[in-house]
């Protein structure tokens, strides 16, 4: 197919974006392109600038320099109609504590003047139908997160911004939110996700950027990045007899592995690609959770 150009629809474009609070530079020359239907993850420790970038992209904050566009429109020029195509879930919920789950969603439905949304169905999808009359203040953190997620997707947005959607949650709730995010991707929604959880990024994201002190230090598909930083190039094998073997990644190792396989001796086999946290450490000397 020589000469064929596949043009991907850019949903989020960021060019040389800078931001500072006084003398403190929090974002430095950010360049990113996020395509339609992609789950993009912005990874970095607390204070790296993740929320600031989301605030700029959603028009809550005006960048000090550079450009960004969401579906071809600068966030500062967004009107109500543009906002209807965007869903936002922030780290601090923004839910009405004294109102029930149902009333919270009903209120946002009324703000959009959209009577076509079946709120009970939405609550059922996020497993909160039983708690529909429960005031938000009586919900657990996981339930609040799910409700905030439901509010973000209530308008069936084209772009979804999720700021640390699973931070501080139990594994079961994390799993439930991951499923909801993947369901959104299936629907064609572009997801911009910030997290400091590398497993979440590896599991969900098509592409990630590692952000450190306001600067992107690495970008790409999680697996590609891990392969890029595989300096050891070794293979770890755990045999059924309990022995652990480490082989150099070369021609001879292939023959050896084949022998182990033919003798049905292998319990597990792993390559030694580093995980994202190790790569981040290598690049910045910092840990994600720091």
């Amino acid at each position, binding site marked *: 197919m020589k000469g064929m150009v596949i043009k991907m629809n850019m949903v989020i474009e960021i060019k040389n974006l800078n931001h500072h609070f006084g003398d403190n530079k929090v974002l430095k020359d950010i360049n990113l392109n996020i395509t339609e239907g992609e789950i993009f993850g912005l990874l970095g420790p607390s204070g790296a600038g993740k929320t600031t970038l989301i605030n700029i992209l959603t028009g809550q*904050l005006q960048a000090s320099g550079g450009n960004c566009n969401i579906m071809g429109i600068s966030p500062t020029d967004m009107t109500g109609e543009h906002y209807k195509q965007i869903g936002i879930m*922030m780290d601090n919920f*923004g*839910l009405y*504590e004294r109102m029930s789950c149902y009333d919270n969603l009903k209120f946002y439905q009324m703000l959009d003047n959209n009577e076509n949304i079946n709120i009970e169905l939405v609550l059922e999808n996020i497993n909160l139908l039983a708690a529909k009359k429960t005031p938000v203040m009586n919900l657990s953190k996981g339930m609040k997160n799910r409700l905030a997620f439901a509010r973000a997707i209530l308008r069936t947005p084209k772009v979804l911004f999720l700021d640390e959607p699973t931070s501080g949650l139990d594994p079961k709730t994390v799993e439930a939110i991951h499923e909801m995010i993947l369901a959104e991707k299936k629907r064609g929604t572009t997801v911009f996700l910030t997290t400091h959880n590398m497993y979440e990024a590896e599991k969900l994201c098509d592409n990630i950027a590692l952000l450190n002190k306001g600067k992107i230090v690495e970008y790409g598909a999680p697996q590609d990045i891990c392969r890029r930083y595989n300096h050891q190039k070794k293979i770890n094998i755990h045999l059924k007899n309990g022995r652990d073997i480490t082989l150099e990644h070369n021609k001879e190792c292939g023959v050896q592995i084949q022998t182990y396989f033919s003798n049905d001796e292998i319990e597990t086999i792993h390559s030694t690609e580093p995980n994202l946290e190790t790569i981040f450490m290598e690049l910045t000397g910092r840990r994600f959770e720091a």
Partner: protein
Amino acid sequence: MTYHIKAILWKQLKDTLKNKAILIQFIMFPLMTIIMEKSISLPDMPEHFFGNLFAVMYIGMASLTSAAAIISEEKEKNTLRVLQMCNVHAAEFLIGNAAYIISICMLGSLVIGCSTGYTGITLLKFLLVMLVGHICSFLLGAAIGTAVKNQMSATSITVPLMIVLAFLPMLSMFNETIKKFSKFVFSEQLFVFMNDLSEICITFESGIIMACNAVLILVIFLIAYQRGFKISK
């Protein structure tokens, strides 16, 4: 966008009617008026004494504190940000809140007026004076609510202001020096109007004082409004 205002009004009814601290503000003075007007009667007591006194306290407290509390809570809990994302304009947000707070306060004022013994045209005049007072008080409360970051800061500003607005007219009845200063406050002027509802006569001095109060409140409100709702730079 009337549906935004309608939605905010609906939300306030659902949300704030469960907020006991706000509810107390709305019903405390009407309730006290009923009790005092029915239970206390002294020989030399001026006509409608308790009714007018509590009415002016109601103006100084209810709409001021509830507006400041509701708006500052929206800021503190980040719900205001979400409303902005839903394209709710500052004016819609404030009109929605004003419609809710002033309507409830006017219901309370009706209770105060009726239990004080006002009827017919006099009751309408009383309600008109109360409406002016609640609007001024709401704008001041809204200015505080939009200017501060959280409810704690709002309370620390509204409490002294509330004391001035609510208690100055009462104190001025007993002290001539206080009266010289209190006449510059809108609640004192409204108290003067209330004390002679049969023939409200706006003197030149009263007119100037009320106009200055209105301009000052509007300026304070507009400054806070512009600062409180702009996108952070």
